[in-house]
């Protein structure tokens, strides 16, 4: 074990890989010292596990209705009670973790690269390209985010895929802005000038040299943004335009419990708590990552 630690913590790494691994290790050590960040990591890992093993964890079928057992309070049989169609809320929340995860991952996969590319291109090329791209970004930023997402869902039709597209359309501009700001700083660095002198094409410079350097701040930004994505998705579900019933999407579950809020508080309370915990998990994790990765 000690050899591994030595290998990772050495002051004079003998290869590029060793240097990179060593840096990662030191970052991990710093991360570990932050209890809030570790709590975030635990929550996110728990979310992954719950989503993966949902059928083993959930005691009931999340879709099975039993109209004679509707709106039952929390009990040993139904930990979080039942909803207006007699479905087990705990099981629905467990399965809902999958829905949340799918939305978050799909949005991130779509948004990250798009924002990065637009921002890096804009920042590196400058001139009219920069101005055009930034005006487009401004237009999207000037829109109330939820209203824009709502408009796109309405245009595309309901369903998870469309909700993902709608959220992605509203989520890319901040990424582009961050990437552009980073690029503006990076492009003035001497080694970029050196690469340019060596005759590298503009695309190559953006893709091979600018983008990788923007990556750390983008990873941080992404993790922090996951909470925002979860909230936007829940907001869409709450307004009745996200997932299709009977999919156990947490926002839609809160919306369904709105009518009973004053008598059967559990219907809306537990899905809300689930959103809170998961979003907080991503935020804590992202915050911790920022501390160790993005020290500039």
């Amino acid at each position, binding site marked *: 074990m000690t050899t591994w630690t030595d290998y990772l913590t050495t002051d004079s790494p003998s290869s590029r890989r060793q240097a990179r691994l060593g840096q990662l290790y030191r970052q991990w050590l710093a991360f570990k010292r932050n209890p809030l960040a570790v709590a975030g990591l635990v929550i996110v890992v728990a979310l992954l596990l719950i989503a993966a093993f949902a059928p083993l964890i959930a005691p009931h079928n999340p879709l099975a209705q039993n109209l004679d057992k509707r709106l039952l309070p929390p009990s040993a049989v139904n930990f979080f009670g039942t909803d207006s169609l007699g479905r087990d809320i705990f099981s629905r929340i467990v399965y809902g973790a999958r829905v949340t995860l799918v939305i978050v991952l799909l949005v991130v996969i779509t948004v990250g690269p798009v924002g990065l590319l637009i921002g890096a291109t804009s920042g590196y090329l400058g001139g009219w390209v920069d101005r055009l791209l930034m005006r487009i970004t401004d237009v999207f930023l000037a829109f109330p985010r939820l209203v824009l997402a709502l408009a796109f869902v309405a245009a595309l039709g309901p369903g998870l895929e469309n909700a993902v597209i709608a959220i992605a359309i509203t989520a890319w501009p901040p990424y582009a802005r961050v990437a552009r700001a980073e690029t503006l700083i990076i492009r003035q660095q001497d080694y970029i000038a050196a690469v340019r002198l060596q005759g590298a094409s503009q695309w190559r410079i953006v893709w091979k040299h600018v983008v990788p350097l923007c990556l750390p701040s983008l990873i941080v930004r992404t993790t922090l943004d996951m909470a925002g994505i979860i909230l936007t998705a829940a907001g869409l579900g709450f307004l009745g335009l996200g997932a299709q*019933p009977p999919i156990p999407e947490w926002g839609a579950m809160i919306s*369904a419990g*709105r*009518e009973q809020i004053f*008598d059967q508080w559990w219907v809306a309370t537990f899905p809300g708590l689930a959103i809170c915990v998961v979003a907080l998990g991503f935020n804590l994790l992202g915050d911790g990552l920022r501390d160790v990765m993005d020290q500039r």
Partner: protein
Amino acid sequence: MRHVAKLLTVSAFTALMATTAMAQTPKDTVVMAKQIDDIISLDPAEVFEFSGGEVVGNVYDKLVRFDLADPSKLYGDLAEGWTISPDSKTYTFKLKPNVKFHSGNPLTAADVVYSFQRAVVLNKSPGFILTQFGLTKDNVTEMVKAVDDKTVTITVDKPYAPSFFLNCLTANVAVIVDSKLVKANEKAGDFGYEWLKQNSAGSGAYKLRAWRANEQYTLEANPDWFMGAPKVKRVVVRHVAEPASQRLLLEKGDVDYARNLSKDQLDSIKSNADIVQQVGDKGYILYLGLNQKNPNLAKPEVREALKYLVDYDSIERNIVAGTYKPHQAFLPKGFLGAIDDRPYKFDPAKAKELLAKAGLPNGFSVTMDTRSVNPITDIAQAVQANWAQAGIKLELIPGDGKQTLTKYRARTHDIYIGQWGPDYQDPHTNAETFAINENNAEDARSKTLAWRNAWDIPEMSKKTGALVFETDSDKRKAGYEAIEREHQKVSPFVIMFQQVEVAAHRKNVDGLILGPGSAANLYSTLSKN
């Protein structure tokens, strides 16, 4: 105390404000919490939606009214009486003397002529209720004529059943407006439309004081109403979207009436001794429309199977109890010719048998456009679970009201879960939409429900259409009953429920009348202790 003194001079109900606790409504004012965001205009020539109908019903009077206890009976309202010519084409109405508008202008035959003229010429959404009798903007002044100050004749183009024509006169579009007042507010020949959208010019129990879209309307009593002054001076109806909020406002005494409580709220206020519930039948029919363009849904056995595949009892008991009741015919209870037959019960075995006969023993996949409001969403999900028992995979497509409706009207749905409310108090209104489709082509002018579900029924259309000329009331009634029974068997409509309107109110307030249509929800009998 300075401000209290000031308040006294400001408003009619201020005196009470200083003495009563905060959470109480003024004594001469009845306050209601209600969903009124459907109001886009208060011009009676345009009002066609639920909430607006209620306002017009209380602000304006009509020539004839139906009996609230038995809507198939009619009596004179502004009209003292009427006669019908032997050829069933000319109706002569004698007006009651001494009726005055809110403005103080006397109500005369000229006002009747003007009211019909403006409704026909403006020809807004409810205009067809009058124009279907052959009134057009070119001939209306000849067809509707003032004989003298208190006598009017109305001539129609064909010998319709008198019950049909008179029933249509009970619709809001046929109310009498104050022609002098409206003319004074005319702009560029608009018949005062821009003005009347937000103001009133009626003779009814209440006059409109203010309306702010999506917020509230305020009505003020007309002390000179010809039926006698209303007891409550002022009615304030406030838009509260959430049923749960409505209920809290009611329980806290912030409002006197909550008008849109759902089943669960009704259950939970039963134990509150300060609150009373009252019900009235409404004409709204809740149904599934099966688009006949879908080859599976076009099979008669499938249509029938689906009617056996809804657990009507369980849905009624658990989801809509108190707000809907089971009903399986296209004419709502209270209409001439309405039937009470309910031939279908939840029977998955029978449904499977029928599906097998249709060549679909393992079911099929199909989508349903569903408004994202309750109880529609819950009913749709219950139906989804019911159908799964016969192997039918129902995918729900949620959307906002206008969104699903747009799709429905374009006939691009598979199944649509919807409500239909009668336009006027005559069986033809529902019969026309559910059982007439004269042209099933895409570009048809008449987009009845039958057309929207691409149900091509030349025979039934003819039979149904003929009934508006059946002058013998009993034969007319029998005719509709026969069509309803046939319709129940063959139609692509799974008719499930009829709406029941519930109003919950504080014990110290009473007297709201919940009639069969929204225009017959009357405030004039309200009282408050």
